[in-house]
């Protein structure tokens, strides 16, 4: 790495993103809706079931986003609204109760059921929170029923996870004890690594939201300090604040630098001595940097263009520019949360072009004009851009794969390097 400054000495200037120009777009968006979050959430919370109340489109979306239909009986399903429900021939609430009965009979192992709202259920004003209360009463204590909206009119892609976690927060057990809560879905392997590092630093009372099992909800209260592991959790943070918890501001744990700053912020919040933190982080930081070194050869000096997708774009761009020497072309995000991203924005190069929202045709024009070395985009755009001679990285993989933390920093860089390496290899 060119930058030999020890990470601990990187000062985070206190500026807002008012300093960075942001292009705001409102046009056709080419992004998934929040229902998509079910694909990773159902794998994370292993005894939860997600029942979308929606249309055939919603069922088809999840099935298509899940890609392969590998699970005999997946822990998600759709209650498809039919003509008779709309025509008032059937009472939608009775129908929903009937479907949940059917589901629970089939899957008595389910401990937590989410009723997930969709555009159709919202437009017909089907009150899923009331339905959830009613069903919770009926099935208590074997099953808890909660609701949230993953609809495309309310949520964009990862915001579905935000809505889901925000629905969980009021359910968390109360505790005044000092504790750290890591918020945002992480792969199990990453959670285990993080727990080990926190333990070495001397922070032992650590909870993760969402947990792997419904019974392991982390307690929350005035003594809780929470740190976001994902940048798209605006609603969840508000809900946690209401429970008395306080947020630890930090960049996100992507890359060696981001992860180190994230751990340092947590350590400082728990008054861990700086030397102790540095001690604990030294080895994993060195390992991560060595791993990044190998990818830097492929990525340094290359330009990258982000289409808006998961809200991970800004932390990713920060990582790629600072630790791998990539040159940022446009960095698009579906929504820019200024407060949660303040530490990230402070680390961004001053000349970066940020864009918020989307008008996909205009953005494609800008992308073609910029002719970047690599484009990060959704699955609908990737092959058409490749056919025009661009190199692309599908953004959805960045959400589905374990990329957070020191040990994954190299893998994360590899996700960007691989398409470039591949393009160089092919002689056809």
């Amino acid at each position, binding site marked *: 790495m060119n930058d030999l400054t020890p990470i601990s000495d990187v000062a985070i200037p206190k500026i807002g993103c008012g300093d960075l120009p942001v292009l705001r777009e409102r046009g*056709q*968006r*080419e*992004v*998934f*809706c*929040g*229902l*998509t979050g079910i694909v990773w959430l159902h794998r994370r919370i292993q005894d939860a079931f997600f029942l979308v*109340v929606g*249309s*055939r*489109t*919603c*069922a*088809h*979306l999840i*099935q*298509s*986003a899940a890609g*392969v*239909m*590998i699970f*005999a*009986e*997946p822990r998600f*399903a*759709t*209650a*498809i*609204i*039919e*003509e008779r*429900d*709309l025509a008032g021939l*059937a009472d939608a609430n009775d*129908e*929903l109760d009937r*479907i949940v009965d*059917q*589901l629970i009979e*089939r899957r008595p192992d389910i401990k937590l059921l989410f009723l997930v709202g969709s*555009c*159709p259920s*919202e*437009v017909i004003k089907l009150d899923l929170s009331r339905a959830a209360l009613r069903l919770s009463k009926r099935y208590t204590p074997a099953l808890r029923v909660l609701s949230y909206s993953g*609809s*495309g*009119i*309310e949520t964009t892609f990862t915001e579905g996870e935000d809505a889901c976690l925000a629905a969980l927060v009021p359910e968390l057990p109360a505790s005044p004890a000092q504790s750290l809560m890591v918020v945002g879905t992480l792969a199990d392997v990453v959670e285990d690594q993080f727990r080990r590092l926190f333990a070495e630093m001397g922070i032992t009372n650590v909870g993760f939201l969402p947990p792997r099992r419904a019974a392991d909800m982390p307690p929350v209260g005035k003594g809780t300090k929470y740190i976001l592991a994902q940048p798209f959790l605006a609603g969840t943070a508000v809900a946690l604040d209401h429970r008395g918890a306080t947020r630890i501001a930090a960049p996100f744990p992507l890359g060696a630098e981001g992860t180190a700053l994230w751990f340092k912020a947590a350590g400082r919040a728990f008054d861990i001595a700086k030397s102790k933190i540095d001690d604990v982080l030294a080895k994993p930081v060195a390992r991560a940097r060595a791993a990044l070194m190998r990818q830097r050869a492929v990525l340094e000096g290359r330009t990258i263009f982000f289409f808006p997708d998961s809200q991970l774009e800004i932390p990713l761009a920060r990582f790629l520019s600072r630790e791998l020497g990539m040159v940022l072309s446009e960095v698009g995000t579906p929504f820019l949360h200024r407060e949660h991203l303040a530490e990230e924005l402070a680390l961004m190069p001053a000349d970066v072009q940020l864009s918020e929202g989307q008008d996909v*045709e205009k953005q494609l024009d800008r992308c073609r004009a910029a002719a970047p070395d690599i484009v990060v985009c*959704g*699955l*609908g*755009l*990737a*092959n*058409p851009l*490749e*056919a025009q001679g661009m190199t692309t990285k599908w953004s959805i993989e960045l959400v589905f794969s374990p990329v957070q933390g020191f040990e994954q920093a190299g893998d994360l860089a590899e996700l960007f390097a691989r398409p470039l390496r591949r393009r160089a290899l092919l002689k056809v």
Partner: protein
Amino acid sequence: MQLTLWTYEGPPHIGAMRIATAMRGVHYVLHAPQGDTYADLLFTMIERRDQRPPVTYTTFQARDLGGDTAQLFKNAVADAYERFKPEAIIVGASCTAELIQDDPAGLALALDLPVPVIPLELPAYQRKENWGAAETFYRLTRGCIGAFPRPARTTDRLVKTCNILGPTALGFRHRDDLHEITTLLGQLGVSINVIAPLNARPSDLARIPDADFNIVLYPEIALNLATWLERQYGQKFINITPIGVGATRDFIAKVAELADIDATAMLTQTASRLNWYSRSVDSTYLTGKRVFIFGDATHAIAAARVAADELGFEVVGLGTYAREFAREIRTAAKLYNIEALVSDDYLTVEAAITAANPALVLGTQMERHIAKRLGIPCAVISAPVHVQDFPARYSPMMGFEGANVLFDSWVHPLMMGLEEHLLGMFREDFEFHGDAAPSHLGGKPVQAQPEPVLTTNQATAIWGADAEAELKKIPFFVRGKARRNTERYAAEQGTALINIETLYNAKAHFSS
């Protein structure tokens, strides 16, 4: 409401997209929320198309609902026209927009664009993908006829011409079927007027009435249109799906009849290897293999005929997820003395396959997963599609080459002839011990997983030591089946203890 784990068909606007994406010069403006843009990836990822589908989504949000979603729609149509300059525009609503009732048709027509604007009414809460495709193809063709100039039809042409109707984007092997059938028609000397919707332009649709007759390649997509064209223009149509040697010959004979040509030469030659491969002694082992068939109605019915008449299988299950074709599939099932299964409930299909206990499943990607869990060989014969259903190589289902493809792709998953025989003979040799599987199956023993969902209340009978020992003598590759059949028989007979007698009674019962 209907509880759905996996769906066989998307909503009807996906069908409309399959038509628009297949064509050139058409643009589709869809009033829909942002999440509905997932549909693009079906075409760009599954079918590996190198262009985005020609679809503009309005992607309205909750905050727009109070305001003016209608204006949003109007702007989207106007912008799409400006940017893409299509020759025809189709407009419609997805499930959510259907509820907010913005009247896309009226809004688009009010723009007074200089190209035909064809509104679609696709009821998202009643209908599904194939219906949507058929309706779109019909509406679009009706809308284009008359909207484009066409040369006057010359009566008394010497050579009769036909249209090929049905191939779409995201169709199961449509690309290769079309190549096979156009080649076949070329050999017959029949000229083709229009192929649609694949690669057709709106102005081509306007020329459809010029042909002498229509070929309905995929009834799910083109039967509605062909029926209307017959009423309107007196165009006869052929609705024989040329899958398998017999059906291809029937198809050729019918084409010859309508085109007024002599096809004797082509009908007497043996154009497919299937005929000989199926007669060769190695194939003796295929005799009476129990096969379960499920898919869209056209492919399922055609596959049943090939399975029974051209491979000598026994059709033990036949079904479709397409209710629109329930009558056709029921009629076909009668030929095999079975009850047709008409259901789009994945779990019902799984239960039916488990109960039928077939040696081979011919189905969709869904049945492939079911078969994998049950340890039954499977070949995919129908949509819904998967990236694997767009192979790089030429791989039609239709015509004589299609018959070759069917032979290979259905027979290879089964344990083949001599190989099966040899395994039986040498099964006690150490290399062929009961846990070994044929190397072509990938090294891992294929084991049927017990399916908790399907357990019935019948108590499972207990195996006596003698019967258990006897069971071990049965070749391993049929042992699982023998065990299941015996247990089923015992349950049916109310037998609590399985002895050698029960085992052989069951064998006799199931082999009759």
